[in-house]
């Protein structure tokens, strides 16, 4: 009896927490359709902020940078990360402690230390050699660095989930390592690679701090643009961009979940 009342109380708390979790996002989405220029009052439905976005070249450019950065960095990270994941699995019997630390480093490093380290480093390299001037290139480098560990872990866990005798069977059936790669490893890995790609993509789009410190004057991504716009003063236009971002991240997240589900 008391147990049931306790559970009911918890249920109420759960729903309140859900409201807490989604209220800020819903408010952003709601006011992106507000016809008046404030987040304090509702003035009726309108698409004027979205319309205005279409004519804002800076925003269009920022969307382009965001997508380009996410796609390029994810592709590089998936290749390098998958190789690490495979290596870790094949040689899991060895002592790889230092390598594991190295792989976990980008995950545990505080964002701001990560971003500023890279910024300071790139500035010095640039001063000495003229290479690595801040821009999309440096951002890709930084993003790949924090994406690699996630890819490696996904791929590794996919391998661990496989029956180890499959590898011997593949070895018996296909003579050359390349054929093994092409006909066995890549096909079995495909769902994991796709899911890793989507995760990397989301991480890239999601990132602000590291992007902010490694970006150049001409390579602002959407989060950086939003940051600047907020600092100049709140405008409903930001609501519209933010809504688009929330929607796209949700979409990619659902896709990645679907791939995961199919794999399981």
């Amino acid at each position, binding site marked *: 009896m008391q147990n049931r009342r306790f559970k009911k109380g918890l249920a109420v708390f759960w729903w309140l927490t859900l409201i807490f979790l989604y209220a800020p996002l819903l408010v952003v989405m709601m006011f992106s359709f507000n016809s008046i220029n404030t987040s304090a009052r509702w003035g009726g439905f309108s698409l004027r902020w979205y319309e205005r976005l279409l004519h804002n070249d800076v925003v269009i450019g920022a969307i382009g940078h965001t997508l380009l950065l996410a796609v390029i960095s994810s592709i590089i990270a998936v290749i390098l990360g998958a190789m690490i994941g495979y290596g870790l699995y094949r040689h899991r019997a060895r002592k790889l402690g230092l390598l594991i630390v190295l792989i976990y480093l980008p995950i545990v490093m505080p964002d701001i230390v990560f971003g500023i380290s890279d910024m300071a480093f790139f500035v010095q390299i640039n001063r000495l050699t003229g290479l690595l001037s801040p821009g999309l290139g440096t951002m890709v480098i930084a993003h790949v660095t924090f994406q690699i*560990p996630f890819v*490696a872990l996904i791929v590794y866990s996919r391998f661990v989930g496989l029956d180890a005798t499959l590898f011997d069977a593949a070895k018996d059936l296909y003579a050359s390592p390349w054929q093994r790669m092409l006909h066995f490893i890549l096909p079995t890995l495909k769902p994991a690679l796709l899911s890793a790609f989507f995760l990397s993509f989301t991480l890239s789009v999601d990132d602000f701090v590291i992007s902010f410190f490694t970006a150049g004057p001409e390579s602002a991504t959407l989060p950086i643009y939003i940051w600047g716009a907020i600092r100049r003063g709140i405008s409903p236009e930001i609501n519209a961009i933010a809504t688009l971002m929330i929607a796209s991240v949700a979409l990619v997240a659902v896709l990645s979940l679907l791939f995961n589900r199919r794999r399981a």
Partner: protein
Amino acid sequence: MSQVDVVWRRRRRRETRHLLVSVLPGALWIFIFLVLPSAYLMSVAFMTNGGFGQPQMPLTLDAFRNLAGFGFLGWSPGNLYTLWRSIFQSVISLGLVVLVAYPVAWYISMCRPRLRAIMLLAVVVPSWTNQVIRAFGWMNLLSPGTPLSTLAEKMGLIAPNMGLFPSDFAVTLGLVYNFLPFMVLPLYAAFEKLDHAQIEAARDLYASPLRTFFVAVLPQTLPGLLAGSVLVAIPAFGMYVIPELLGGGRSQMLGNLVASQFGEAANWPLGAAGALLMLLATLLGLVILRRMGRRLGGGTEMVI
């Protein structure tokens, strides 16, 4: 040397080469673009400020003296206040996160298995959106004139027309919001493994509900609680975006201090010293996690 030995050795060399070929590109990437840069940053913390932000020789401990408030105008408490605020904010928000996450994780573990996955997802999904946008959402909710601010005004909690943002309170709220999933996940992992026989036993012995909780429930969830605490408190300590957006100028935390030294304040060594402090805090957190993982077992795996 026997034939077998030679074959074995050759094979082993081939395996090593395979390991290097597969692992080296990515490992080198992380080494060059993260280990080297952070090592460089750490070394900057021991250099002298060259006036325009460029670090110079000779090596000194000036940056750390600076961080403690000693400038060329004498001692001022500004930096120490910032440090104190970072610690205070991360401790307070940790406490609040525990208060919210504990019942939530408990409730999720009571629901049907199919439902649990969806509920966990519901907790995590908001954190997939960009943190700038999440902070912006709170700015929308808390700025002057919004229902929440008006309510707080009517209750006499804030001065008229001030709004709940920007303020220390808004920063705390933002931190709680940001880190809630980091606590719910490890706590849920602990609750999932809850041994109900212990609770039954406590009840059979006529322990009061409160006593049952402290004797039979809390100890079992301690690993998750501790893991979550590290995952919340350490990153909160170095938070940059939330204090910057929700706090306004007077709610700066260590992350903001560090960032400003590489920007407008132009004192790289001081910024690097702050970053070093943050890294030490992170290291401390990792050591605690490892220790706990060994002693209490589990609860730490579910982290993304």
